[in-house]
């Protein structure tokens, strides 16, 4: 029996070993290092002096951090809410369709989601191009016929990138909503039809309450994902005024790779990390509170 136990431990070690190696070296250690680094004044590569909370005080009072924070928050608002509402509407529409039509329509919405971000960037950059872009026709409607660069005009930058992001990522949310809608038993609708409830009433009384858990899931997944935004914003702001449209991860990138301030970059990373943990815990509480109801 004792030999069996020993053997089991050995097997476990062999199976878990690679995981421990990978996660230890590339997750646990970097996380510890990140926190330690945030208390030092260090270049990106190399040792630095311990400065206590100095970096935190400095960053929290820095204007650029504030604009990074508010830009990120603005981006989150611009993407999460429209994305959720549009995805739900599309999921409802797609769910009504049958057969190959449903597959085709779903593929149209989902295909963008699996494309690399740079493909999305190149495609949309071409569409909104000042000189030859297709979208200039639309821009002209609002702008008195003048062509306009949507990504170099600061107030239009975030809405434009948010629009592209919604187009790019909504396939994911549509899918989750469809899964949620299919979970609703058709018998409930049968019963509602017998009670001669109209479409709108059916939606408000049956669909909406039953699809609410998925909505919470979709909202929180997006919220956390958009806080970490980098790729699109970086790509669309190449050559533009990066500071005006900076987001939190770009701020970390700027400190570390453009200004060689490893310590301060780590501090900013810890702050982002903190925000995401707070949101994750809130999400957990929200989901649990709902589960108990």
């Amino acid at each position, binding site marked *: 029996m004792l030999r069996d136990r020993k053997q089991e*431990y050995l097997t476990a070690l062999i199976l878990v070993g690679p995981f421990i190696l990978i996660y230890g070296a590339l997750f646990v250690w970097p996380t510890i290092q990140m926190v330690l680094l945030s208390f030092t004044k260090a270049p990106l590569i190399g040792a630095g002096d311990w400065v206590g909370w100095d970096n935190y005080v400095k960053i929290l009072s820095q204007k650029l951090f504030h604009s990074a924070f508010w830009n990120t928050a603005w981006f989150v608002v611009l993407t999460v809410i429209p994305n959720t509402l549009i995805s739900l509407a599309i999921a409802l529409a797609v769910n009504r369709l049958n057969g190959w039509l449903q597959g085709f329509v779903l593929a149209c919405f989902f295909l963008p989601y*699996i*494309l690399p971000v740079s493909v999305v960037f*190149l495609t949309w950059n071409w569409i909104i191009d000042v000189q*030859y872009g297709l979208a200039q026709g639309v821009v002209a409607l609002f702008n008195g016929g003048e062509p306009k660069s949507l990504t170099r005009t600061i107030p239009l930058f975030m809405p434009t990138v948010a629009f592209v992001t919604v187009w790019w990522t909504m396939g994911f949310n549509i899918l989750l909503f469809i899964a949620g809608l299919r979970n609703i038993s058709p018998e409930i609708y049968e019963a509602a039809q017998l009670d001669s409830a109209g479409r709108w009433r059916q939606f408000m009384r049956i669909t909406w309450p039953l699809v609410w858990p998925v909505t919470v899931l979709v909202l929180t997944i997006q919220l956390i994902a958009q806080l970490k935004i980098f790729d699109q914003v970086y790509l669309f702001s190449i050559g533009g005024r990066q500071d005006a449209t900076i987001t939190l991860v770009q701020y970390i990138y700027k400190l570390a790779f453009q200004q060689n301030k490893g310590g301060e970059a780590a501090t900013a990373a810890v702050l982002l990390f903190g925000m995401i943990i707070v949101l994750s815990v809130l999400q957990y509480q929200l989901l649990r509170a709902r589960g108990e109801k």
Partner: protein
Amino acid sequence: MSAEALSGSQAAVAERSRRDRPLDLVGIVLTAITLLVALASFFPIYWAIITSVKPDGEVISGSNSLWPGRFVFDSYIHIWNNTNIAIWYVNSMVTSLVITVLVIVSSAGCAYALSQLDFPGRRLIYVLILACFMVPMQALIVNHFVLMAQFKLLNTWAGIILPQLIVPVVIIVYKQFFDSVPKEFREAAMMDSAGHFKILFRIYLPMNWGVTAALGIITFIGAWNAFLWPFLAATGEATMTVPVGITQVKDAYGIVYGKLMASAVVAGLPVAIVYLIFQRRVTQAIMLSAGVKGVTRRHLDTPSWFDRLTMRATAP
């Protein structure tokens, strides 16, 4: 639960209510609107493809015709001859495939141990995996960069691969499925004095083949599409991956959209093909990884032609 997984009576009810519904005007209008919006959503992809096969003159003439006057593949020939796209392709293929294999193998082993074995530190490891969900990998870029620089791994395949091996969701999904395998299978195998490795590779993995296929595909797509880390880790043109490399495609005259669209099409092609072949698996994997309830084992067990082909090779 999706349509396939609905119980017989429910499906029958759904079918009946669908057929009984009169062909009303509202329904037709709604369907038409849905179809239009879907086509509008697909349009940017179409536009990129169409632009890539137009002659340069037509692209910048501003005519914006929806169909090219003449199909030419000059843009593709140009990027093939004038950029390192072939090397970027090799880099992307190698790194994405290695990431996929390593993630799947290490996660399956770890999940089996967590699910079926009793050993000290088991709970701690599970908590660690859950914690991994919360830590944004984007926050760790600085430390990953320092680590890779210390080991002189920047601008190498290993440097691009290593930080991308952290995919906690694969372990969690595997563990859930391994937990739900009936204990009798394991006990019976134990009677035949099969070791844990044999049980894992001959019973647990083949039984969950659908899960493996779904997770593998989604890991591959994720690795192929990754931008931030490969962008930091590969600064030389020779080590870039496709998504990073194509942002470098420029011309002596500046931005030439025909060529840019050709590179975009080439970069998106592998994932688009993977998606079109494995459509159902990709969507299942997404639902699994988001933790949506109702993606059942039954659901994943209906093998596609690809699964049947590969299952034959691995079946006990």
